[in-house]
């Protein structure tokens, strides 16, 4: 077949890792073979993720910059609509007769604008600079929680592999993040569900490649538990954060 691919063995480390990601994106099981056998799987996993997120991050930043130059300045539109709303007779009479009502309206109006800005996806300079860093942080967090829970569940179900081998395979399973490079095209909408669904497929392959002794049902169970525990972990972190905030507030004030 003309589209057949070859597992990379040559080229510098960066391009080799990106080619591995490409093969993993195309659901090639053999892409995981080398990384699972890496002498230091966690280090290899980290290097893989760094190569992925730095490359994708640069492209995403470029895409955001292109978005910025192809969208009308939202702050200027904001100023025009502000003038229309707040200089209107209706608002002026509200402000004079019922300041509370005017305040509530202003608050809702600001929230509405904020939501609209998010909906349009209008990028700011801060997004362009910090976007890749936040992507890397979120990716590393997901990698760590998935790897910890996945390895634990897989071993409980009887999976046998070198310690932490799953970390390297799971780092390679982040391959669908490559799809974010498509956002280089201004106006392109990349559904989060697409990356999520493809991640589910690559994560399953990572489990299969690391624990060949497990059946497909056990691999599926590992994946489902991994996801469930990850989300429980996030939920607990939010709850604990709120509780901690309330306790601190009570103590301080």
């Amino acid at each position, binding site marked *: *077949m*003309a*589209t*057949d*691919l070859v597992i990379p063995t040559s080229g510098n480390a960066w391009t080799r890792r990106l080619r591995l990601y490409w093969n993993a994106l*195309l*659901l*090639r*099981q*053999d892409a995981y073979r080398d990384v699972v056998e890496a002498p230091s799987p966690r280090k290899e996993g980290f290097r893989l993720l760094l190569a992925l997120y730095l490359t994708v991050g640069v492209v995403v930043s470029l895409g955001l910059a*292109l978005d*910025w*130059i*192809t*969208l*009308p*300045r939202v702050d*200027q*539109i904001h100023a*025009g*609509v502000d*003038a*229309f709303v707040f*200089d*209107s*007779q*209706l608002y002026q009479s509200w402000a004079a007769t019922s300041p509370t009502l005017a305040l509530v309206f202003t608050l809702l109006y600001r929230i509405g604008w904020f939501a609209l800005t998010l909906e349009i996806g209008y990028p700011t300079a801060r997004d362009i600079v910090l976007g890749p860093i936040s992507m890397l942080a979120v990716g590393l967090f997901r990698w760590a929680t998935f790897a910890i829970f996945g390895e634990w569940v897989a071993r409980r179900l009887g999976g046998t592999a070198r310690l932490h081998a799953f970390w390297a395979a799971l780092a390679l399973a982040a391959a669908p993040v490559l799809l974010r490079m*498509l956002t280089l*095209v*201004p*106006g*392109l*909408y*990349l*559904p989060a*569900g*697409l990356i999520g*669904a*493809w991640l*589910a*497929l690559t994560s*399953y*392959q990572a489990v*299969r490649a690391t624990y060949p002794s497990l059946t*497909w049902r056990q691999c*599926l169970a590992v994946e489902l538990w991994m996801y469930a525990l990850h989300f429980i972990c996030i939920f607990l972190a939010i709850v604990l954060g709120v509780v901690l905030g309330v306790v601190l507030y009570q103590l301080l004030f």
Partner: protein
Amino acid sequence: MDASLRVVDFWKFLVLRNPSFEAVRQAPGSLWLSLRLFMLAGLIGTIGILTTGLAEAQRVTVADRLSAGAVSLDGAAENRLLRWTPRLASAMTIAADRMRQAAAAIEAVQPPLGSAASESLRAVGVWVSQPLLSLTGWLTVFLPLLVAARLLGGRGSLREQVSLGLLAFLPQALLFLSSFHPEPGTAGASVAAMLRVGAAVWSLAIWLTASAVANRYSRVQAAKVLVATIAALVLLTAISGWLLDLVSGALLSVLL
């Protein structure tokens, strides 16, 4: 055996040639071919979105709405009933003027790259998004089908199933006419409706072949997998709806 399938060989899948499906199953890099065919079919099927996007100025949506609002207000102010309330009519006319001013101010705001170039680029972006949206929807249906196929005796690997399953999207290119949103009641709308039905039936036929080849079972077994998955999804939806109703009812009775 088809040893070197390329994008131009798409018709081999449309005419349900078994050796072509078999070749996709066996080639390790076949998913790339399937993805390109999927994108191509998606782009053809939504070509109307590109032409509409290039023709319409998406940038002035807010301004357009304000202008339309101003016209409505003006129309309402001239209504006979409002002649008896001149102050209200006058306020509405003033508001309409202000809306026009705001619309003009918004329209004056140009993207740094320029209006025409920006809109054209973004129209292309919106068009390219369409197959990606379809792929997301496709995968949502596809993932339960993968599990059902394995549970009911399928032996296809993940790559084999996905590579072959994506090919079932090819007939969706026939939706190109629907993407132009023909006026209801016209011949165009009738043809578009027929093409939609044709595309659905054809996709189903390709999926049955693809699933049979990927999982090494018969088309009848593939049909059973499909029916079982749909039944399971309907049942799951009904149960989750019932549970949601139960929980929300209990919560409301506690809160109210």
